[in-house]
């Protein structure tokens, strides 16, 4: 295993972490807003806020970690992606800012403020869509080199079915992941009506998720044949992912083992995400940029890896403490104690 692979594996894992816990977070914000709109807030709001409150800031860090890390390990990405992504990422940042601050405004400032809840619910739903554009662009075909500078062709981007399938996938996967997780969480909290409602949402959003995910592989055949054929070589990973998906839906349907259902869901996304990542190898941006020609110098790479290991020694115990106090603490989950500042 060389340094390039170590670097991208670390970053890809953190991106995966962000996608899962970010999806839980954004989906929860959306369900919360939706429940206010449909008058179901009594059922959902309590359980959602109980989960979200102590962890929201941690979620953000995963994203920061990813984009700081990628500049560190692969500095050339700053040139290619930095120049071309000005508009999509700026829009993402604006949504991210609204989502984060209005969440805090509502939670700590004015509990139950409807305007704030809608703001962050909606911003959170659009955020995955705007960030998913980055993955679309990485497939190539949207960037031209003009006078040595990369330029994004918006017309081609926004008329491509691939773009829109990835947008739909990002939104439905967000809602699916979030609903399944919250079903488990509500069940642990002993909240029957919330569990039922969230289970229903989970089942509803499972279908568009799997259909668009399959559709994207199909569309890649036309858009980027090289990547498409690479995906074929990893068919086993995608098969396992699909079987896990079936497992989650089956457990939800049978109303049992919600913890396992979420575990399988995490597995489903992990296999698909790492399968996708591995088949993307060695390109960071088709066909302009590979892992190898964008990689940093060995001195920087080694120091980053050392810092990463030291950092993990600090982080893992802290994260465990956080999870033990809130996620895996029965009294907290059931709302028996409330020690909010």
């Amino acid at each position, binding site marked *: 295993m060389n340094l390039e692979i170590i670097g991208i594996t670390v970053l890809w894992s953190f991106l995966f972490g962000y996608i899962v816990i970010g999806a839980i977070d954004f989906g929860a914000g959306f369900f919360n807003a939706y429940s206010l709109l449909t008058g179901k807030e009594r059922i959902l709001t309590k359980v959602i806020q109980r989960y979200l409150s102590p962890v929201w800031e941690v979620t953000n860090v995963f994203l920061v970690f990813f984009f700081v890390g990628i500049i560190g390990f692969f500095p050339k990405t700053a040139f290619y992606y930095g*120049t071309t992504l000005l508009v999509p990422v700026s829009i993402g940042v604006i949504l991210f800012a609204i989502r984060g601050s209005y969440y805090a405004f509502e939670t700590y*400032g004015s509990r139950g403020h409807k305007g704030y809840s809608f703001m962050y619910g909606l911003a959170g739903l659009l955020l995955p869509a705007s960030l998913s554009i980055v993955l679309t662009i990485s497939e190539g075909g949207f960037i031209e080199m003009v006078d040595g500078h990369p330029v994004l062709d918006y017309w081609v981007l926004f008329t491509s079915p691939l773009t829109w399938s990835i947008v739909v996938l990002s939104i439905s996967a967000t809602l699916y992941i979030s609903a399944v997780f919250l079903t488990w969480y509500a069940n642990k909290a002993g909240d029957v009506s919330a569990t039922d409602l969230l289970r229903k949402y989970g089942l509803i959003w499972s279908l568009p998720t799997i259909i668009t995910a399959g559709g994207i592989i199909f569309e890649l055949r036309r858009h980027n044949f090289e990547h498409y054929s690479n995906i074929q070589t990893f068919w086993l990973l995608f098969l396992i992912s699909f079987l896990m998906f079936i497992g989650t839906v089956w457990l939800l349907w049978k109303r049992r083992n919600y913890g396992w259902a979420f575990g399988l869901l995490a597995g489903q996304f992990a296999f698909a995400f790492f399968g996708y990542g591995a088949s993307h190898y060695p390109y960071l941006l088709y066909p302009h940029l590979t892992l190898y020609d964008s990689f940093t110098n060995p*001195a920087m790479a080694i120091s980053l890896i050392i810092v990463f290991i030291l950092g993990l020694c600090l982080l893992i115990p802290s994260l465990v403490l956080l999870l033990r106090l809130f996620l895996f603490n029965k009294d907290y989950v059931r709302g028996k104690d409330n020690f909010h500042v």
Partner: protein
Amino acid sequence: MGNEEAVFYSRVLTELTLSFHIIYATIGVGVPLMIMIAQWVGIRKNDEHYILLARRWARGFVITVAVGVVTGTAIGLQLSLLWPNFMELAGNVIALPLFMETFAFFFEAIFLGIYLYTWDRFENQKKHLLLLVPVAIGASFSAVFITMVNAFMNAPQGFDIVNGELVNINPIIAMFNPAMPTKVAHVVITAYMTAAFVLAAIAAFRLLKGSNHIYHKKALYLTMKLGFVFSIATALIGDFSGKYLAEYQPEKLAAAEWHFETQENAPLVLLGVLSDGEVKYALEIPFGLSMLAHNNPKAEVIGLDQFPADEIPPLYIHYLFNIMVFIGMWMAILSALYWFGINRGWKRVSSRWFRWLIVLGGPLSIIAIEAGWWLAEVGRQPWILRHIMRVEDAATTSGQVDLMLMLFALLYLILGIGSIVVLSRMFRKNPVEQELEDRHMEKGGDLH
């Protein structure tokens, strides 16, 4: 949009984001320490008022930290979006402290979540206070690591450029560059100082607006005392910064001080106006600049005559320097007067007009922070990386920067107004008298 325009708009957008972010970032670095001190004093003196002070500050802090986090993410991404050529180079050489910053931020975020949701959960208050320590450390170290990157832009080292290629890269030497010690110390200490004076302004404001509760008086005394200590530390570090500049970035010092000709016995020029290259109406402190630069009234100080015209920063930074220094001095004097006054029993420091001066000190401190950062950034012009890369060569070639500038301006307006509205509503709805009363009722002491 031509590329000159892209450079211009990129600069404006970066300035806007930094100017907005720095308000929340400064509070974010300074306030956790204040909360920690208040809670510690409360535990030691067994005084409920200080504990409640910590608790109420923590509540307000969450709002500012949220805006700080999202705007910090914005500037983090904007560095790559607006200055891709710079970040490509920076990624190769100075990525290490940037990466460390994410860990400091991670650490802070985790423990902030725990701290906020474990009030009264522990029998022993000290355990709860212990959870705040990583928050304060994480916040301060975020500032340390980010400032290291900024210091690198002023005094780049730890690499060589041979035929346009970066070679001999040493990330540790890049981190510990000559600008680092003074810059890091200055940023961190002024954040503490500003946080103390902003909190003092709030306490003074409550006292002026009708509440005469001892709670606010305790808050005011504590924060003014802390503010005084940090303002003295700031003055000392400011002096070291002058010596650093004289040694490593003489053009920045010379431009900030309007020191045109290299000379011995250099005076320190304050205020004044420039007309036809002549300084008029200025206050001059004889030997002042020589003292600031070299601790020796006779020392020679390099003037702007030693630099090519296209490598001299804009001369208006002189005023930024003056604003920063005057406010810093003024706050040191004000807080010293207050501290001595209270201890000596002077009536005047508790008068209405004196309290209004303290209220004014809050916004003034923020202005000093802004002036300081503008001085630091504009004073490095025309370079983004001193003597290595010019700002215009670092900017994006993208054509939509102006549009993004408008969107972000709107965003900051919304966030700025939103955070002020939420904060003022939060504390107005739950005044301290009410909360103290509620807490006594809860404890079940006097149920009539």
